[in-house]
């Protein structure tokens, strides 16, 4: 009798924790949505989505998110272009080439890489990488999109490497045997057989990497120059969606138009990350099959 009650209590506790997570996610989204919808009573949604100026304290204020959206996209694309080839290559090396002891060393090093706080990377960006890029490319300032991209690439690498590595290791060993049996070299096997077989997992890794990059705030706020203008190139100062929210939220009056506009930016960010994670999830599931 007592045991049965005990079982029931534990079971309902577990059920409750599970439900709570779902409820929290739902509430967060509702909360964001409620406050951002308040903006569109006062400010037209078309001007918000397609406006080319973000001037929250001018008279009248302008809340066009195109410069911020472009800022985020520039930095993200830059970071992905840099980190995907490195990440996939590193994963290939760890999964297929490196001898046992090196594999362990590299894997723990990558875990350490993942645990570097982003503010430390931002610091390195301000002190070293920014000035270095300024001198190399002859820029007016080193605080630009590229600096952010490089540091974000660095931050996304651990995610990409470890998920890619899992995908590569998950390819059945029999493929390798078959390819070697046909006279293929190690490289041919890796490139033409193992990589295609792991492709869904690799796409998932890239998507999760993008999700990580697009949501990152501290680094981009510290090193990208925070200029809410439409960037002409990645070598110019720009500002991302995340940095805008983090940078301006402290200065706004609760309930003001500006305050609601920042919530609306949050919803846009939420939708973007949600889509990316969804794609990653679909790919992961396909990879498991």
């Amino acid at each position, binding site marked *: 009798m007592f045991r049965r009650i005990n079982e029931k209590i534990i079971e309902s506790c577990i059920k409750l924790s599970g439900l709570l997570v779902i409820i929290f996610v739902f509430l967060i989204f509702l909360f964001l949505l409620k406050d951002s919808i308040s903006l569109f009573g006062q400010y037209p949604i078309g001007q918000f989505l397609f406006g080319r100026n973000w001037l929250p304290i001018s008279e009248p204020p302008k809340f066009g998110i195109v410069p911020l959206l472009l800022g985020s996209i520039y930095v993200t694309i830059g970071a992905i272009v840099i980190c995907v080839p490195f990440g996939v290559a590193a994963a290939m090396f760890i999964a297929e080439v490196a001898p046992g002891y090196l594999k362990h060393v590299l894997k723990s090093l990558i875990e350490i890489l993942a645990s570097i706080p982003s503010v430390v990377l931002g610091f390195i960006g301000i002190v070293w990488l920014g000035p270095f890029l300024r001198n190399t490319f002859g820029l007016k300032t080193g605080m630009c999109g590229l600096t952010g991209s490089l540091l974000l690439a660095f931050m996304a690498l651990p995610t990409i490497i470890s998920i890619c590595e899992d995908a590569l290791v998950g390819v059945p060993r029999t493929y390798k045997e078959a390819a*070697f*049996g046909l*006279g293929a070299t190690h490289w041919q096997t890796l490139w033409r057989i193992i990589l295609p077989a792991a492709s869904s997992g690799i796409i998932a890794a890239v998507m999760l990497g993008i999700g990580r990059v697009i949501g990152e705030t501290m680094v981009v706020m510290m090193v990208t120059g925070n200029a809410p203008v439409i960037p002409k190139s990645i070598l110019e100062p720009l500002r991302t969606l995340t940095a805008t929210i983090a940078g301006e939220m402290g200065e706004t009056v609760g309930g003001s138009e500006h305050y609601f506009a920042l919530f609306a930016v949050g919803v846009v960010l939420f939708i973007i990350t949600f889509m990316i994670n969804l794609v990653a999830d679909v790919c992961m599931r396909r990879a498991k099959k």
Partner: protein
Amino acid sequence: MVNFMVSLSNPMEIETTIETKNLNLYYGDFRALNDVNIKIPGRNVTAIIGPSGCGKSTLLRCFNRMNDLTENAKVQGKIIIEGNNILELETDLIFLRKKVGMVFQRPNVFDLSIYNNLKFGLRIHRMLSDKDHIMQAIQSGLEQVNLWQELKDKLRKNARSLTLEQQQRLCIARVIILKPDIILLDEPCSALDPIATLRIEELLRILRQQYTLVIVTHNMQQAARVSDYTGFMYLGQLIEFGETNQIFTNPGEKLTENYISGYFG
């Protein structure tokens, strides 16, 4: 079933394709092959039988040096294929494995289309570059394993969507397309149902006219049905080797007789 155990010619006239001399193989300290001396005749089906763990697969995997992939496997002795000792350091493994193809226990088609599964070998050996020639080679490969009629309209489909029997046939086609001299088959039917097994055996009988086939099997009836020569292995040693007919009806060793009559195995 057609009985194929008739021996047509004197074994002395038949050319030896694979010959081993005092072949030993160690996995660490374990001696998996113990002084194996075998002469496998060409253009015939040779079966290697024996209880599991007797080293028959290990022996087969020596013939195209697949044991190189196994860590801590050490091989001593000589394996002479077409006059060359393939255990020499300077052996070109890529060329060797093209000449000595292998079909594995479980059908291991790649996670690619049927077309690309077959094209892979042609591509890595830079055999054909012209699209039409590749298509011809693929067609003739599939025809030889009786798959062309079934698959000619779905060459772009993923090969893993085929039945296990089709997959195993495709694996054989993938080897044949490289024009090998020898095909090694490591229990090629163990993942298949009895009817598919019979059909694959039928295929092997046709292929023996063009290739030297060496098949490892734990299924004695299969060995009796498909092979011209049989070797019996026990605990890493080759106990007896001879014409299948003779091994199964009049074995020279007591051990072989006991195995064949089912006292152990």
